């Protein structure tokens, strides 16, 4: 496949025995999986299981030690810049600049991805309306309640209409109502064709994903739909599935 073409087949992310070693410590141990376009893919695992390291490789932020992977059709070794242009990212720790206004944040991030002024203007108005933030457009982000911040951050992350968006525990600490509103937004984004790659510590959110993978000690020990996982592990909830798998882990952090 020509290295400069956009992803034309149905796969958004592909990893083949992807590995990352730090000295003699193997953080990510030959993981293989595929994420289809428009899928909501849950990437679960205990702290220290290797999730963050894996995500970094997929985002083009860290060079794998061995194995292959492609994101939006681009190779994670050689085409990291193209990857970064095709994805969005949002984490619990950082989302927006607290000392900029809502509008300024949108403009800034959209500008990074090279969107035209016309596009920015039109879409900003649309976004503010959707989130009911029109009145707050000129307010500093730090004055917004947390739930609104996270919803805004998500909107900003997909503002430039990326193919894939990576969400690193986006709902941590958020109240239950806003969490659900957030997932509503995720569903809408998936419906519009954006592939969602999300990690979370809330097991009920695992149920909202099309498929879920669970990392243990650097390996992927389970990958299937939530329903299938519950059957395979004879569990009544994803919580139980997770406990059964994670308890076997030899290393934590």
């Amino acid at each position, binding site marked *: 496949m020509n290295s400069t073409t956009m992803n034309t087949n149905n796969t958004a992310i592909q990893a083949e025995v992807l590995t990352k070693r730090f000295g003699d410590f193997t953080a990510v141990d030959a993981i293989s999986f595929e994420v289809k376009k428009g899928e909501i893919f849950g990437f679960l695992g205990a702290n*220290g299981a290797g999730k963050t390291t894996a995500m970094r490789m997929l985002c083009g932020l860290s060079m794998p030690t061995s194995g292959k992977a492609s994101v939006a059709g681009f190779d994670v070794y050689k085409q990291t810049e193209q990857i970064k242009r095709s994805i969005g990212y949002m984490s619990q720790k950082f989302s927006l600049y607290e000392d900029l206004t809502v509008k300024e944040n949108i403009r800034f991030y959209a500008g990074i991805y090279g969107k035209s002024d016309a596009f920015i203007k039109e879409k900003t108005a649309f976004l503010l309306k959707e989130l009911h933030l029109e009145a707050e457009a000129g307010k500093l982000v730090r004055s917004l309640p947390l739930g609104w911040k996270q919803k805004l951050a998500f909107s900003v992350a997909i503002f430039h209409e990326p193919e894939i968006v990576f969400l690193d525990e986006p709902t*941590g600490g958020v*109240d*239950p109502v806003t969490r659900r509103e957030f*997932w509503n937004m995720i569903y809408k984004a998936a419906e519009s064709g954006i592939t969602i790659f999300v990690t979370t510590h809330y097991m*009920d959110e695992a149920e909202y994903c099309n498929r879920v993978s669970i990392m243990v000690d650097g390996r992927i020990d389970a990958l299937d739909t939530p329903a299938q996982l519950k059957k395979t592990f004879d569990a009544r909830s994803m919580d139980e599935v997770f406990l059964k798998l*994670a308890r076997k882990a030899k290393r*934590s952090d």
Partner: protein
Amino acid sequence: MPSVVANNLEKRYGKKKDIVQALKGVSFEVEKGELFGIIGPDGAGKTSLFRILTTLLLPDGGTASVDGLDVVKDFKAIRQRVGYMPGRFSLYQDLTIEENLEFFATIFNTTIKENYDLIKDIYSQIEPFKDRRAGKLSGGMKQKLALSCALIHKPSVLFLDEPTTGVDAVSRKEFWEMLRSLKKQGITILVSTPYMDEASLCDRVALIQNGEILSVDSPEGVIASFKHPLVAVKDSNMLQLLNELLRFEGTLDAYPFGEYHHVVLKDGYTASSLTNYLQQQWHVQPDVQTIRADIEDCFIALMKSEEIHH
């Protein structure tokens, strides 16, 4: 005499136009030896509340006491006898496990030996690694060390601010098991957490949101006060199902809840009335079950009724 008393606590941040009311009149009591949970999302006011109770912040209104001592006037005495671990506390990274513990013991004018029995169950799990630097510990081990350091001086009240935040489900469960085992020692423990499912592990809980207490009760009490019928529904297309549920005339509220959607029904409606409705919408055998409310259901209901009142 209750261990901790909060009476109409208020706390504001910022000036003039940008005032944020972190606490808007919070009141509750904690009995001696209770495992008391402060449950609420980020920004609810949990940390401000803890800081006032541990005498690190002065309230703007209201009063509070710990072991009968006033948090404003008798702060020195309170600081001698409580244990406190702030949110995301990471101890001294370049000191070993043993050095950390020894340090905290000495600061509190005691020794590891003196109260070893108190922390034995917890500390013994990390003792084999006592010469390892705290910075090189796993998240779970750090928790155990932090807990040991907070307990080593046998505090009468232990304040743990979000000790399980950012930690995976397995470690969280283990941590709560450790806390429950501490109840035998008669220590009053106040824990704050954003995770609703941890509420059921407490003796009593205070649900807090936006600086206000929504409810103070035992977990069962909170659940018992859930007034409306609650039903869980599942189907192959959950998104479509949710829309249909929201259109049902008997629905007071409907929201996703993991594998199922939860539907809060208006009085007079039952699971069967919902089933009938769904069958009319061409669902052949809808999976509808009456269920008991969960703390999260209660929190959502309380949040929404608060919003209506404002």
